[in-house]
Each structure stands twice: as C-alpha cells, then as structure tokens.
C-alpha cells in the first residue's frame, strides 16, 4: 500500500467514523438533516462518477433518481412487496433505465448528450404524470408507515433512519473510492482527459462510458429508493429538471472529480439555503451571491481547491 493510499484510507475512514459519531451528538434537527444529506450526497457521488471522473455532463439524472424512487414506491404500493425487496427492485430498475438511456444517449456527445439526457428525463417526468392512476401524478403518494421497515427495523425511527442513510452513504463512498482507484477508474479519467487518446490506446471507450453511466445510475437509483423508504414520500417533483441540476451544483460546489466533494457540496448547499432562509425571504439571492463568489475564488469546488492548494493526493 502506498503512502497516498494509506492517507486516503485514513481520511475517508475518518469521515465515515465522524459521521457515525455525529449520530450520538447532533441535536434532533441537524440529525435529521444529516441523514437526508447523506442520502442525497450518495446521489451526487453517482453523478460525480459520470461528470467528475468520466467527463460526461448529464442533465437527466433525475430520471435515474426517480426510477429508484418510483421502482421502490410502486413495488410497495402496487405489489405489496416488503421494503427490503422494494429497495432492490428500485435499484435494479434505475440501473436498467440508466443502461438503456445511456446506450441511446451515448450515440451523441458534448452538448447533444446533455440535451438528449435532458429530453429523456423530461419524458420520464411526463410518463409519471401520464400514469397518474398509479403514480398519483404530480401529487405523488405516501409510503405507509407500516411498510417502511426492513427485518423489523422501523425506518421512520430517527436513529434507524440515520444508520440506514449512513449505510447507503458508506456503500456509495466505498464504491466510488474503489472505482477511482481501480484500473477501470483510471480509464474513465483517461477518457475525461483525452477520449481520442484512450481510444487509440485500444480501450473500448463506448463500453467504458456505458459502464460509468450504469454505475452512476445505480447510485442515483439507490439514493432515490432510500429516500422513498426513509422519508415516506414518492413524488414527481423528484423527476423534474431541478433534480437533474441539483447534483451538478452539489458536485461543482464540492469539487468535481473528488470523492468527498459531493458530500461537502450537498452539505454546503443544504445549510446555505437553510441558514439564509432564516435571515431573509430573499435567501436565493444570498445563495446566488455566495455561489458566484465560490465560482470566482474556488473554481474547482471546495475539495478541488483543497487538493490544488494543500492535499495533492486527495482522490
């Protein structure tokens, strides 16, 4: 094991330990917030895998998040399966949707890829509205309290929910770390840096890209599925374009191409909105100004800037 790898393991292990310890010290409000942030940060980590490491900018990730959310929610509400099975159904469904959409969208590149993914996501959103008989359209539906337990663990209980969110986040973090440190991850970075060179070196770039989309979609779907069972609501707003833009924002803020960036970005954005809304009704203006300053002074995001200035080995 190299020294950088050891440092990386210590840092990420420390972050996980810290998150675990916070379970016991945080006040109720921030305890609930952090559970939600961990779930959404997993979504952002999936996005980062595609955008930050592979260089593919998708504007349609809400579709994968929603596929996990609805796959899980509908499995429970329409077919009466248990939350654990529904969670797996949601992740599988989201991954499948990701691979199919990815196979089609990868026929394009650059701006066209962004537009095609955006259009597919919009089609997904309208599909949810169209099948309102099952999905309750824009209103969405509630996953009953009784259905939100896995092996007797009540997911609506604050401690259980926190642990569940922690497990989801840990799984996403470990997966991202493994991927970016693996040979597969190095090829993704090579594609991001110079796609033609990667192709000339003999790599099947399209296959690698499709695999990246599949992995990214599976994390988005895991996050969506977890959100449904942990917070009890399945709604079409999660499939709207806003939820495709948000992971991009979280990743850019935290630092694209850094494993911890998505967590930092999600946390930063959450509390920026939460705190500024307590100061003024024009809180989006505050948020906007802060984001402009961040873009000016930390263009690589918070963790990206940290890597540039101090911690060169940060994955």
């Amino acid at each position, binding site marked *: 094991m190299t020294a950088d790898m050891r440092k990386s393991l210590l840092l990420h292990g420390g972050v996980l330990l810290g998150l675990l310890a916070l379970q016991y010290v945080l006040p109720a409000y921030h305890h*609930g917030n952090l559970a939600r942030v961990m779930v959404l940060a997993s979504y952002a980590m999936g996005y980062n895998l595609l955008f930050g490491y592979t260089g593919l900018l998708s504007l349609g990730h809400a579709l994968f998040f929603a596929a996990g959310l609805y796959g899980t929610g509908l499995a429970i509400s329409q077919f009466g399966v248990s939350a654990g099975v529904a969670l797996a159904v949601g992740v599988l469904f989201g991954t499948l949707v990701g691979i199919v959409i990815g196979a089609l969208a990868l026929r394009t590149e650059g701006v066209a890829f962004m537009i095609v993914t955006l259009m597919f996501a919009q089609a997904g959103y309208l599909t949810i509205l169209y099948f*309102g008989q099952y999905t309750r359209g*824009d*209103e969405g539906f509630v996953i009953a309290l009784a259905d939100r337990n896995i092996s007797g663990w009540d997911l609506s209980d604050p401690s259980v929910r926190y642990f569940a969110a922690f497990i989801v986040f840990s799984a996403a973090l470990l997966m991202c770390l493994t991927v970016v440190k693996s040979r597969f991850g190095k090829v993704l970075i090579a594609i991001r840096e110079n796609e033609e060179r990667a192709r000339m070196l003999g790599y099947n770039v399209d296959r690698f890209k499709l695999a990246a989309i599949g992995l990214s979609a599976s994390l988005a779907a895991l996050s969506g599925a977890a959100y449904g069972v942990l917070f009890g609501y399945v709604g079409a707003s999660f499939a709207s374009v806003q939820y495709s833009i948000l992971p991009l924002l979280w990743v850019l803020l935290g630092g694209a191409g850094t494993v911890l960036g998505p967590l930092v970005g999600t946390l930063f954005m959450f509390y920026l909105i*939460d705190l500024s809304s307590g100061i003024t009704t024009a809180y989006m203006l505050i948020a906007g100004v802060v984001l402009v300053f961040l873009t000016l002074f930390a263009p690589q995001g918070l963790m990206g800037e940290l890597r540039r200035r101090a911690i060169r080995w940060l994955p």
Partner: protein
Amino acid sequence: MTKSKAVPVTGTQPTRRDALKTLALGGGAAAAMPLWARYAGAQTSEPIKVGFQVHRTGIGAAYGRWYDRTTSAAAALINEQGGINGRPLKIVAEDDGTDPKRGAEVVEKFATQHNCDIGFGTLFSHVVIGSAPRAGELKLPYFVVSEGHHVASGMLNRYTLQPGITDVKSQVQAMAPFVADNLGKKVTMIFPDFAFGHDHRDYFTAAIEAQGGEVLEHIAIPPTETSFTKYFPKIPRDTEVIYHVMVGPAVLTFVKELGEFFGPQRPEMFGFIDSLEAVDIGSPGLEFLDGTYFWEGNPRYAQEDQSEYDAFFRERVGVDANGASVSDPKDVSTYAHMFGCWETLHVVKAGMESAGYRGPQDRAALIEAVEAMTDMPHSNAHPQGAKIFNGKTHQVFGHQYITKVVDGKLLLVHTTSIEDTFYPDEADYTTQAL
C-alpha cells in the same frame, strides 16, 4: 422571558354568576391591558408557536402571499382577544419553496429547531403529501389549508387535519346539481393532465352522471402546454356546457384562445376560480368570460347581502369590496381559498382551549379535541360560512358558492347546502394510535 407563578386553588367553589361576572370583568380588563400584561395570568406567558409553512417562492407564491397576510391578520386578532389559553400566538414562518422535499425539511425545522406547537398553512397538495409523513413521525399536529382530497382519502395520518377549508371532492360534487339544472347536461371537461385535473375529471364525471347528465369528452391538457387552440376541435358540437379548470400562467392564453375559437356563439361555461385566483377578472383578454359561471370557495366580490362576518374578515385582512388589497387595487387576493388560514387558526385556538393545551406534551389531546368538533357556526371565526367537521376523516365540510361574471364582476347566483358536499367516509383516522 418572565414566567408567572401558578395561582394556588382555594377551597371555596364559585357560583356560576360569580364566574360570569369574573369572566366579563376579566374580559374587559384584558382588552384594556397592554399586550404583555394580558398573558400574565396564564401558567406561562411563553407564546404558542405556530409553524407556518408558507409558499413564498415557487409556483404557489401568489397564494402564499395572501395566506401570509391572512394568517398574520388572524394571529393579530387572536392576540388582541387574549391569545390562546391566555398565551400569545406567535407565527414562525418558513418558506417551503412550494417543494415537497423542502416542505418536509421545514416541518422538521418546526418540530425540532423552532419547537413549534403545531405546523400549519400548507396549500399545494404535493407539498402536503410530501410533508405529512414527517409531521406524523414527529407527532406534530399539522393543520393544512390545501383543499386536496388527500386528507379525507385516508392517505395521510392522524396528525394531519384540514378543519378550515373543504376538499376538492366535496366542492366538485356539489357543483353538479347546479350545472345539470341550470346550464345543461351534456358536458365537455377541459382540465390539466395531472392529479388536480384528474380529481376534477373523476369526481365531476361521477357527480354529473348522478344528476342524469353525461360528460361527452374529457380533454386533458399536458401541463407543459402553452397553446390550446389545437385541443378545441375535440369539443363535441352538441356540448351544452364546458367545464374548465386550468391553472398556472397559461390560463390567460387558454381563455383568450377559447374566446377566439368560439366567438359569440359559445356553449355555457363553468369553471373553478382556481384558474383565476389573484388574477383581475377585468384583465384584457378575459372579456370572453362575461356571462360564465365559477365555483368560488368564498365570493371575491362583496355581495349585496354580504354577512357582517365577511365584512369583518375583509377589513381585518385588508381586502376591499372587489377582493383586492386596500393598499393596491391591482393586487388581487386569493379570496376563494385564503379564508382557510383564518378559520384554521380559530379552530386551533378552540381546540387548544378545549384541550387545556399547555405544550407539546398535550399535542395528542389537541388532536382529540379537534376530532371531537362538529358544528362550526357562521361567525367572525368562520366568515366563509357555517361548517361541519368530520373527526374521523379530519376533513371539514361547508357551503360552496357559484358566481356569474357580470360586467367584469363575480355575482353570487347560488349557494350550496353543506349536505350537498357530503360523501361517504373513506377513512377513520381515530383508529390510529396517537
């Protein structure tokens, strides 16, 4: 903050006359006292905190602005009258961005950071449905002002109640007798192709059929649509009534294009004012609506036989006889809905006083006290009209109003009975644990 000491109970029992005298004297004296002193007799002078989940941004902002004003006016009135159980009412407002995710976060904030006694005031259905599970888990009484059928349908939980505004199912079905008897029995429905529109489609279709009528065509308009002319040829020629309920910024285009399509020869038209809440009926392009009919939860224009309660409500909230702000005649209110905030806060006051509410430990007692309510008489507390609350379904039922556009104003032509709005119970929340 100063806390008063509890007064020890003496051994002598007061007579009823003594009690009435004391109440009368106390009431008069309380009104004359400065605000801080009025609450000194309560066991604690800590305010009762009402977490107000308000749509200040997002699609619900126009409604949110008026819900905010109405809530502030109701809270001011309640405080002038001595508060709740002798304690002042404090509104803690948080913007939910009309977003269900943020809505759930705001509910958590009320319960765990602001230490609010209740959550209150949510309008848009998706925000209610997204927030209610968290309110139930946190055991925070959640009083919504949404008119969605989600409460009475049994989808939510025992901590979610809608005692200040009727739901869409009761509103829609109460319209059918008037439409069938006065406008025609062959109806074409035009509605947005999402849950709100589907509710209208399903409930009105069943209700008009029960009146011997029929819906000839359902025309669902996709929510992203900005031009409507291409849908109008689908309207069957023998249509006697067009039932329309469009919402969002495209509604003005919808009405204008409908006018251009039909010209002077149009069928009767009946719509829900939701389409035109906060919009001046006299706006250019809306001339086509003259002579058409609307459902209104509460008539926007002060009618000739306006009740003293409605006059009082308008004055306190700051709404003129045309339903606009007294300070800006162009700032049209959401009059058909916003009374719900006023009435809900009065229900909360009555419920807390009935339950002897002291703090969060009495939240369950508050729920039970509201569930025990039935008749709510027409009064300053209920200026929209008398109501009947169903404790099992957590839903209130009340009169509905049908107005006709005459010379750019909405004139009342029909008031339904409360019984017209009843339907069989679909849930019994009282069976759920508190």
